[in-house]
């Protein structure tokens, strides 16, 4: 029984899904593309589409853009209704689940047919979009975490340079904590806090990718240290409770020593903080050069009626020409080698600090962590993070929290 039949019986509604006009037109050379909260680049996309239409006469392109948290809701509703956009811009690990359940098209055959295409991209970033040896996503724009630090606060506390190890992060934080001032913040959504674990050699899962491997004395020790530093004010509580605005806002206030976040934070902080300049803000790799990526990429829906055309548009939008244009206009790295070179070149003269920040994104790309291709990533993440949060905020001791987390993760794994 196919999916739609079942829904219909559930609805007790007869008839076929009505076909609105835009859908009927889809059968002849029409593409729809859904992007993830990047409506500010409307002008660029319009140009890209016009260029694409010039090369492929008779093609119509429908462009949709949805805000981050709402995109999955929109896409899944469209999927149920059988009207999923041909191309979708996906962030984080959500693509793995969709790919594993057969919603996305395997792009490997296309890449094998045109081996030159894959060479355009940074190989490490491209590889992070592989699940089950198949490539489902092409990089659109990329980022990974780095360590920002407030040089003024470092100086005040008598610290010369950025921390080189996990313990230094904790100790430096303590050294800077005073009154309203705290030493350290990290973003925590998705797995962005994972470098802190990786620095200590903590593993989430055993190599079978099913059994939890994190319930070890080492993890306990790490959580204990984090909890102690949080309780004493070394680590700002927002590190464990905030989302995007709160940690960046707190760091921008100038009262926090370090921020573990990705390059987009730089532009946010700069917008809020008048104090930011190359003498006051440092941007370096995390200790051990570990980082967690948070990338955007294009995937093609399996339900697409024009997969070849969709692939052509994906290639078009991530080509040297348009990726470069995108990189220049948005000050962003695209994963396209030529584009990022040009983009960095331009930023270098305009904003040396932004250049330093963006440069970290292309270095040590072999040390990316916290990006396991898990088909049930969202559930594992939720189950694990809730307990980590309990531990570092002192709501549970590390041992109990880890035991509970192990149970919860095991349960998620068993269910799928």
């Amino acid at each position, binding site marked *: 029984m196919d999916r739609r039949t079942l829904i219909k019986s559930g609805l007790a509604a007869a008839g076929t899904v009505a076909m609105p006009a835009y859908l009927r037109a889809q059968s002849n050379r029409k593409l729809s593309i859904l992007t993830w909260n990047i409506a500010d*680049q409307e002008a660029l996309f319009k140009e890209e589409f016009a260029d694409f239409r010039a090369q492929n006469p008779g093609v119509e392109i429908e462009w949709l853009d949805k805000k981050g948290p709402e995109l999955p809701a929109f896409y899944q509703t469209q999927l149920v209704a059988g009207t999923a956009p041909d191309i979708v811009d996906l962030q984080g690990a959500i693509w793995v689940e969709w790919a594993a359940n057969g919603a996305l098209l395997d792009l490997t055959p296309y890449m094998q047919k045109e081996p030159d295409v894959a060479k355009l991209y940074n190989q490490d970033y491209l590889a992070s979009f592989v699940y089950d040896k198949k490539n489902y996503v092409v990089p659109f724009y990329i980022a990974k975490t780095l360590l920002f630090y407030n040089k003024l606060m470092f100086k005040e506390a008598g610290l010369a340079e950025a921390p080189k190890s996990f313990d230094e992060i904790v100790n430096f934080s303590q050294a800077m904590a005073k009154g309203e001032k705290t030493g350290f913040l990290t973003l925590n959504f998705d797995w962005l806090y994972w470098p802190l674990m990786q620095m200590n050699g903590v593993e989430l899962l055993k190599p079978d990718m099913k059994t939890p491997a994190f319930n070890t004395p080492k993890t306990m020790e790490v959580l204990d240290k984090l909890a102690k530093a949080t309780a004493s004010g070394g680590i700002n509580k927002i590190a464990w409770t905030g989302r995007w605005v709160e940690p960046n806002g707190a760091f921008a206030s100038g009262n926090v020593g370090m921020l573990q976040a990705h390059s987009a934070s730089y532009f946010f902080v700069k917008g809020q903080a008048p104090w930011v300049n190359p003498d006051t803000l440092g941007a370096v790799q995390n200790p051990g050069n570990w980082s967690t990526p948070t990338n955007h990429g294009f995937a093609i829906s399996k339900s697409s009626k024009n997969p070849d055309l969709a692939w052509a548009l994906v290639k078009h939008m991530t080509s040297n020409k348009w990726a470069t244009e995108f990189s220049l*206009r*948005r*000050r962003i790295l695209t994963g396209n080698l030529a584009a990022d070179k040009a983009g960095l070149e331009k930023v270098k003269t*305009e*904003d040396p600090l932004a250049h330093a920040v963006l440069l970290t994104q292309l270095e040590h790309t072999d040390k990316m962590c916290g990006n396991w291709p898990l088909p049930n990533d969202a559930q594992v993440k939720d189950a694990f993070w809730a307990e980590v949060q309990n531990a570092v905020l002192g709501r549970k001791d590390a041992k109990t929290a880890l035991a509970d987390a192990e149970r919860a993760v095991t349960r998620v794994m068993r269910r799928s």
Partner: protein
Amino acid sequence: MEAYSGSRQHGWRKWLLNRFVLVPAAILAVAGAWDLYASAHDDGLVIGQVLDAQGKPVEGAEVTLWVFSFTTFAENRSVKTGSDGSFRITGNPSHHIQLSAAKPGIGASQRIPIRLYFRSQNTKLAAPLVLPGKA
């Protein structure tokens, strides 16, 4: 029924001259007037003058128009100043711009932010752009 037919006697006045019609009408009138004004003043003209540190007009300085795009300002176009140091930029497409002037040997001015009430509003700089050096 009496009451209902009775209320009809006011006729069109009742239907037109009440606050549910008058207030929106007033708002529309103001908006329309604003639109008219805007469409008569949106040639994208930016006029100003460039001076050196001693207040003398600078001829041949390059004045650049920066247009706000997302997080940063991007160069849009530039013109050269005339003999009296004045310049005239046409075709400003934005409502949020910056201006800077530079001439080799005299240096570059600071970027002056300018905010407009509508896109391409004609504007005249209140203060001249000042270069740090001597002409």
